[in-house]
């Protein structure tokens, strides 16, 4: 199965990709967060500079990059989340 999702980029990842938002992107579902990250790396290879210092957010929930499997639906937001620096 496939879902059409919106991908949001923040902070350093905006500078690496040149975009703040992509929509919509076709993504297989269900998918591991590692495979989801690899899919984004294929679209924007410079994201590899964030390797090991990034997580994703799916429907506004943090997901570490690894074996966790997520189910995506049309219109879902996926975000690239570099290390936080609020406050």
């Amino acid at each position, binding site marked *: 199965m496939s879902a059409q999702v919106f991908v949001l980029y923040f902070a350093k990842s905006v500078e690496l990709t040149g975009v703040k938002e992509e929509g919509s992107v076709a993504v297989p579902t269900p998918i591991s967060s590692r495979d989801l990250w690899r899919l984004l790396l294929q679209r924007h290879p410079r994201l590899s500079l964030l390797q*090991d*210092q990034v997580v994703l*957010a799916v429907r506004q929930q943090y997901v570490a990059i690894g074996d966790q499997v997520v189910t995506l639906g049309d219109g879902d937001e996926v975000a690239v989340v570099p290390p936080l620096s609020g406050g």
Partner: protein
Amino acid sequence: MSKSEERRDIFKLSRDWLSVQEVVDAVSSTSCGAVSIFIGATREDEVGGRRVIGLEYEAYELMAQSEFSKLCDDIRARWPTVTHVCVHHRLGWVKVGEASVVMAISSPHRHDGQQAIWHCIEQLKANLPIWKKEVYDTQEASWKENAECPWSFQKKVPPAASPGENV
């Protein structure tokens, strides 16, 4: 607290200068003898010979709001007497000396409020999807990383021994 007074959790992202009075007023209650406040201000750091002139903030706004709600639930679970919570955070350009974040928590007595305000800034730094870029007087900039954030400052895998070494 009178039964009719509903507990408030207020979060605002603002491109304008923050008003401490507004944040304090948002948590005031006749049932509360204590208002605990934290203000985070932009510091004029010197980093490698470059001077910080300001910070540029951005946020995943929808998620910052939902993470704030979870943070308030956490605060209330730990300190049930906490009455109202208000956090205002800047977006966009914040020059040195200005407040980046103002937070206030009201409670009947000061102990819980003081503990809660400390926890609030710690957890905001660890969990809210907000980012800041330091801008220097050289016009360079760099994205900051909070030590509180679990995915920053990751330890790198130690390099393998070089081929010449007899390991």
